[in-house]
């Protein structure tokens, strides 16, 4: 499977990131790794595309970043989901679900 290109990924980047933070805070590389792992390598984020989105989402108040130091490790910036982000995640999930359902019917898509 070819990696999804940027143009198609852009619209879903926020949903993908919000979903990775639903269970616990993660740092940037961990978010990218988790997305790549869960998508089976179909979706990958390079730094150039990941961090600007993280910053924008932080500006929107959906996530909050904080530098954390742990013994024996580099300090890292962990992002967590805020209350607003949790609502945004639910809203985007609902919206994307409806969109994908329509897309399937309209374009004859099949489940992967």
């Amino acid at each position, binding site marked *: 499977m070819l990696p999804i290109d940027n143009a198609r990924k852009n619209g879903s980047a926020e949903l993908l990131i919000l979903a990775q933070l639903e269970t616990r805070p993660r*740092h*940037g*590389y961990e978010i*990218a*790794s988790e997305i790549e792992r869960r998508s089976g390598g179909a979706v990958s984020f*390079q*730094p*150039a*595309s*990941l*961090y*600007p989105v993280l*910053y*924008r989402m*932080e*500006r929107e108040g959906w996530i909050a970043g904080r*530098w954390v130091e742990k013994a024996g490790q*580099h*300090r*890292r*910036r962990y992002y967590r989901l805020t209350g607003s982000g949790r609502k945004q995640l639910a809203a985007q999930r609902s919206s994307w679900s409806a969109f994908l359902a329509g897309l399937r019917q309209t374009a004859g898509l099949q489940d992967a």
Partner: protein
Amino acid sequence: MPDFRAYIREHLPPLGASGAKEAEVIEELALDFEERYKSALRGGLDPGEAWRKIQSQTEWPQLARDFTAMLASAEPDPPKRLLPVLNFWNDVRYAARTLRNNPGFTAVAVFTLALCLGANLTIFAVVDSILLRPLPFPHADRLVSAFHSYPKIGTPHSTASLPNYYDYREKIKAFASTAIITENSEHAIVGAAGSPSSVERDRVSPEFFSTLGVKLLMGRSFTDQEMVYSRSGVAILTYPFWRAYFDLDPNVIGRTFQMDGSTTTVVGVLPPDFRFLSRRTQFYIPAASDPAERAIDQRHNNTHILIARLAPDATISTARAQIAALDAAQIKDDPFAENLKAMGFVSMVSGLQEDHVAAIKPTLLLLEGGVLCCF
């Protein structure tokens, strides 16, 4: 492992954010790069291949463009007048983080700052006590020092002589009180046979303490009669000497002690806080002399510091003028008149504190300037 931070700093175009924010971005990216590099190594690539992969995946123009857009709109613009404060606060936070992450550097920086502060405080304390604070005597601004100057032989500041003292106290009306103290302290051997010790001693004239405005704790000052060798076996003790040698005996007046093999009688005790300039004198004895030492040919035997308290209406200029007139009259019968003219002899009068610090002032100011440069 490649230096990811240096690589990012080299390639990342300016983001237009504060220095602290830009540093955070660089750090976050560097950590990401490092993880990706390690992951590539774990995936079987050799270090060179892993590094090339990281480099090829980074689209710098896009990264800079997106970051700039994000950072520019990340927060509502604060009022312009607050920008310097916010930038300063960001820089402080960034500096604090940097220091926390570099304990070695922080230790050196703190040590250097402490050293500079300590040096500065020490030098300032010296400058304050010597240059800025008035001498610890009542109306210290009325105290002056008179001395001889011979500028043509490179001696602009000499001292004064015994004849000067006797002449000035009689003829210089601008001085309410005139006194002398030997130019240098002497070492005296005191104590009983078998337990002698060496202490510093000064010779002074009877009015020395009253000229300074110092009242004795007990006893009296010297008398004119004691200004001859045969009757000069008396002493005025400093408080430390009184404590060390007489155990603060309240009946010390009239007691004796051995000094340079002679018996010396205590006639007075000074208050605890008395100290003349920077001297470490333990006790004082009369500045005794014989007639030969007070003769005309001894006028320029400069062995004493002459101090005086200005009369109520007098100024330093008045005193200078009166001394100049006296010099003009005395040089007529001075056996060394021609020599004195050749040496450019002139008498000088200056404030006692100014005179006291004149020699050390440039050095102290230089030191103060030096430690200030630490900052």
